[in-house]
């Protein structure tokens, strides 16, 4: 089997498995998995920038929230249907990520982390400041009638699962195509050795800006879909913890791997879910797991698999 066939079989196989799981999972895990797939799409977006282009952002909540509020405000105040709402979310994420990219990419390393963190905090405070429209911390609750897409009710668990799977599949296949294309190879080259990439004639700034925008749009799309599927648009999603989550998910699953974001999100979600059923100190369990993974699997779960077994993993 060629590497290409293996890659397609593995990623296609996962999507087929996720499709089949909806018929067998009990309701509780069914609901969880729908949520995980949307959050994993957010992580996939984060991974484009961090895992492939090597840009460590601490402000991705801003892109997630831009998509979510772009959709939420259009639906709530503009009376938009879900599809125009989603498009508004994408447009908002595009505009925000382009602006942040143009400014933040003037810095590098720690400076880049701080600038993205500050932009995200400014975004969070902006949402609170315009509480008249955003209802601040309380957030907007979307009614069932506002969440019907082409006659399909997204509040139903079955359709919700399917919509989440569709989003996840689009994000995974898009990044898979990206990293196998010359464009993705250049991003990896920039991550590995920026100066060398520049001296091969690549306009490093433009490639990095493109990575920020692609990453921002995928994250924003995930935010918009999250709001639509779960009916809630709140300022929590713009807070700093939603900038840290995708970083953790991607680190755990394996930065710079296509499946890492999903594996990391799944792992972290159930780690907290299972440990909180046992103890109120569940964050301690999560912390210990993180330390252990950092010690014994510094490349993340999928990253270690690639290093040790499947060297062809993209």
């Amino acid at each position, binding site marked *: 089997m060629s590497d290409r066939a293996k890659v397609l079989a593995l990623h296609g196989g996962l999507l087929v498995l996720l499709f089949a799981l909806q018929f067998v999972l009990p309701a509780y895990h069914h609901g969880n998995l729908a949520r995980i797939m949307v959050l994993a799409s957010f992580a996939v977006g984060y991974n484009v920038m961090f895992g492939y282009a090597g840009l460590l952002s601490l402000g991705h909540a801003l892109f997630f929230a831009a998509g979510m509020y772009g959709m939420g405000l259009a639906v709530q105040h503009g009376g938009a249907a879900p599809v125009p709402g989603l498009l508004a979310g994408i447009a908002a994420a595009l505009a925000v990520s382009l602006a942040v990219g143009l400014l933040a990419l003037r810095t590098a390393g720690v400076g880049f982390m701080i600038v993205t963190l500050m932009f995200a905090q400014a975004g969070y405070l902006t949402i609170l400041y315009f509480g008249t429209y955003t209802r601040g911390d309380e957030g907007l609750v979307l009614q069932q009638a506002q969440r019907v897409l082409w006659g399909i009710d997204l509040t139903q668990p079955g359709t919700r699962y399917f919509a989440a799977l569709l989003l996840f599949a689009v994000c995974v296949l898009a990044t898979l195509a990206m990293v196998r294309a*010359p464009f993705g*190879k*250049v991003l*990896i*080259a920039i991550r*590995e*050795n920026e*100066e*060398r*990439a*520049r*001296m*091969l*004639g*690549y*306009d*490093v700034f433009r490639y990095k800006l493109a990575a920020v925008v692609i990453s921002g749009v995928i994250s924003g799309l995930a935010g918009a879909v999250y709001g639509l599927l779960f009916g809630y648009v709140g300022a929590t999603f713009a807070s700093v913890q939603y900038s840290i989550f995708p970083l953790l998910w991607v680190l755990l699953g394996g930065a710079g791997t296509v499946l890492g974001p999903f594996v990391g999100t799944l792992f972290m979600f159930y780690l907290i879910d299972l440990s909180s059923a046992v103890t109120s100190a569940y964050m301690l369990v999560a912390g210990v797991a993180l330390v252990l993974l950092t010690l014994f699997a510094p490349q993340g779960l999928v990253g270690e698999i690639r290093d040790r077994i499947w060297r062809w993993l993209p």
Partner: protein
Amino acid sequence: MTLLSTRGLSKSFAGLRAVHEVDFDLPKGEVRALIGPNGAGKTTFVGLLCGRITPSAGQVVFDGRDISQLPAHRRIGLGMAYTFQITSVFARLSLYENVALAARRRVQGAAAVEAEVLTALRKVGLTEAPERAAGDLSYGHQRLLEIAMGLVQAPRLLILDEPTQGLSDAEIAGFKALVRDLSATTTILLIEHNMSVVMEVADRVTVLNFGEILAEGTPQEMHANADVQAAYLGTG
């Protein structure tokens, strides 16, 4: 016809004059060696040519066009290629991918890229499996990989910064043959410490000392030049 020239090209680092008012002309088709003692400003000078370093003053003209204001990637796009003094390959990427990254700016399509990459690897004599990680190669072979990455760009001006450092005698002999071969189609500017390479492949030699051009001429002339010997031996 002149392919590359500089006028009054200068660079100071916090008061240290690394390159000072250099007027330099490189005719098309020539193999020029740039020599000089350590710290003479050779790497800084070629850094100014290809845009890695911004000059404090002066101009760089490439093929009749003033490129002083162009960023490095645009200069590379005009047909310059630069290989690094300290090997700077993509260590975690494969041999193949290293060269392919250099090739893809010029040729499109997987098959065309593959043909170019394999040709370039063969020309420099890298016989390792192309899928090996570049970081696993010996130092000398990483140097050869650097050269392959330069070659595959089919540049009009190839700038090589100490290409033979760390190569075995047999590899140096191969390198000399490669440069002679290339000189039919490519202008080459070569920073080199190995005098046998300079004597055998260079058409002309420029000697830099303290950031200024000390002398210029054929390899034989430079070999006999008292100032050059003084600069190298430190008795001047």
